[in-house]
């Protein structure tokens, strides 16, 4: 039987198929990237510096944010929280008086620019100087999506192992700053800060590194100083 028209066997004919080849060279995530650019412009219109915070689950993103809002009180901070489920993280930050909106991705392993756009409209942008976008805990998928932030930061806790940057090269490649967290636990784990930094610089030679413990407070001043510098340079660049 002819597969094209289903006519009886033995009936031989040609099916005229005209095809057309179209060369495109288009980014597959073109729409996401356009929305990301729009998000960035939206932040800039309000003079808001946006940071995309990424890490595996449990590296200490929310705890670091809790400490940051206590220490960086000269800036008004807002948070867009991304999680698969629950409002827990947003509630933790609201308890500190921070405007926080929760985006539940409903199973998606990353935030994309469209989800962040929704978050932007839930925050009082005109009052803010700095917005943290706390991505879904995952060292793989968030790295592929521009969400419209001005700075990508990746957290790596010392309990995860110092070989992670080479194992997840795309993530550590996308970040401009590596924050090594939970350094108070260094005596109990086989984690070498030096090896971790070397591993990260192998995939991203120019990555900045800060080490800290949100629990003991060690290194937090350096982190806060880094943020002050970034936010002020950003504000100056807008004038």
């Amino acid at each position, binding site marked *: 039987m002819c597969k094209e028209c289903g006519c009886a066997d033995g009936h031989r004919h040609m099916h005229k*198929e*005209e*095809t*057309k*080849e*179209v*060369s*495109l*060279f*288009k*980014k*597959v*995530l*073109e*729409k*996401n990237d356009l929305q990301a650019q729009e998000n960035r412009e939206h932040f800039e219109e309000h003079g808001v510096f946006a940071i995309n915070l990424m890490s595996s689950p449990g590296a200490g993103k929310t705890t670091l944010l809790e400490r940051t809002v206590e220490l960086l009180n000269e800036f008004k901070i807002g948070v867009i929280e991304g999680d698969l489920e629950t409002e827990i993280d947003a509630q933790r930050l609201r308890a500190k008086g921070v405007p926080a909106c929760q985006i539940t991705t409903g199973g*998606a*392993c*990353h935030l*994309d620019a469209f989800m962040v756009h929704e978050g932007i409209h839930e925050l009082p942008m005109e009052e803010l100087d700095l917005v943290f976008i706390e991505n879904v805990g995952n060292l*793989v*998928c968030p*790295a*592929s*999506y521009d969400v419209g932030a001005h700075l990508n930061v990746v957290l790596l806790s010392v309990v995860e192992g110092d070989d992670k940057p*080479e194992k997840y*090269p*795309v*993530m550590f*490649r996308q970040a401009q700053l590596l924050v090594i967290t939970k350094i108070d636990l260094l005596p109990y784990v086989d984690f070498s800060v030096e090896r971790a930094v070397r591993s990260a*610089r*192998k*995939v*991203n*030679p120019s990555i900045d590194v800060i080490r800290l413990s949100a629990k003991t407070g060690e290194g937090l001043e350096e982190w806060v100083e880094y943020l002050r510098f970034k936010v002020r340079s950003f504000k100056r660049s807008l004038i």
Partner: protein
Amino acid sequence: MHEFSIVQNLLELLEEEVEKHKAKRVCRVEVLVGLLSGVEPHLLELAFETFKEGTVAEKAELVLQIEKLKIFCEDCGKEFEKEELNALCPSCGGLNTRIVGGQELLLKSVELEV
């Protein structure tokens, strides 16, 4: 596993092309996957086969072209291609390098039945 979401973006682009060229369907899709794009080729194929059903690409063949990592070493003054996912210069072993290719995920071309 974000390849499903990437395929949905890809299918949207294919639908736009079909409409733009008033074509019947997509016969062939060529996608360029950089080794450092964060996309796993095998998972992309699997996701495409799963999601193409009932779309303009239902009968389309997906062809992936893998792009190696390209780095430029400032010290050697040369560009190198490599398969290892790091920025180390394969010649001098240094890190005074820039990654100049292999990070893209591009829809390169489509063949449409018109």
